[in-house]
């Protein structure tokens, strides 16, 4: 029962964050929302009895993707200094 409550809440959160990520005007907010989707997806993988996939998603799919996105964003922003 606990698993079901947790899974339903995380699924709701993931969908809300996905809509934020697509709909929001700001790129930074969209990227952070994508990172949070990855982190909650890894909790969902854990609930679905896949710890290997959860660890891969937490490390690669969420962490490194966010870092790469921010490096690219840093290269193309207007510098006023």
């Amino acid at each position, binding site marked *: 029962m606990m698993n*079901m409550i947790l*899974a339903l809440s995380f699924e709701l959160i993931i*969908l809300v964050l996905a809509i934020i990520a697509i709909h929001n005007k700001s790129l930074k907010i969209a990227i952070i929302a*994508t990172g949070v989707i990855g982190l909650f997806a890894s909790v969902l993988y854990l609930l679905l009895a896949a710890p*290997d996939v959860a660890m891969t998603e937490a490390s690669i799919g969420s962490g490194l993707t966010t870092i*790469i*996105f921010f490096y*690219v964003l840093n290269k193309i922003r207007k510098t006023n200094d």
Partner: protein
Amino acid sequence: MTQYLTLEFTAMVTGFALMIIGLWGLLTRKNLIKIVIGFAIFDTGLNISIISMSYLKNRTAPIIDKSIDASNTINLFVDPIPQALVLTSIVIGVGVTALMLAYVLRMFREKKSLDINSYTDLKW
């Protein structure tokens, strides 16, 4: 009703919904980086739905340790093959994302714009 309120079914619905949201972003947004974000969301949705296919009710992760009865593994474990598939798919996903972002940087160098409507060279 209760037959649909299972872990694997709701996860499958979430995965499909994420795929549709990602496709929506992929098709309607004009910003190049937004398109890459849509792709990343599509990727996550696909992985979630494959993993939800491998889940079997009331079973646990396919790793043998002290808390597992090693002779009865066939009735205790979920399917390990989709998990191995998704594990590699996530790593490929980050490689593809990095490649797309490198293309975006290169395109930005040419036209100084992130709007997809300013790249009309190959449009017909």
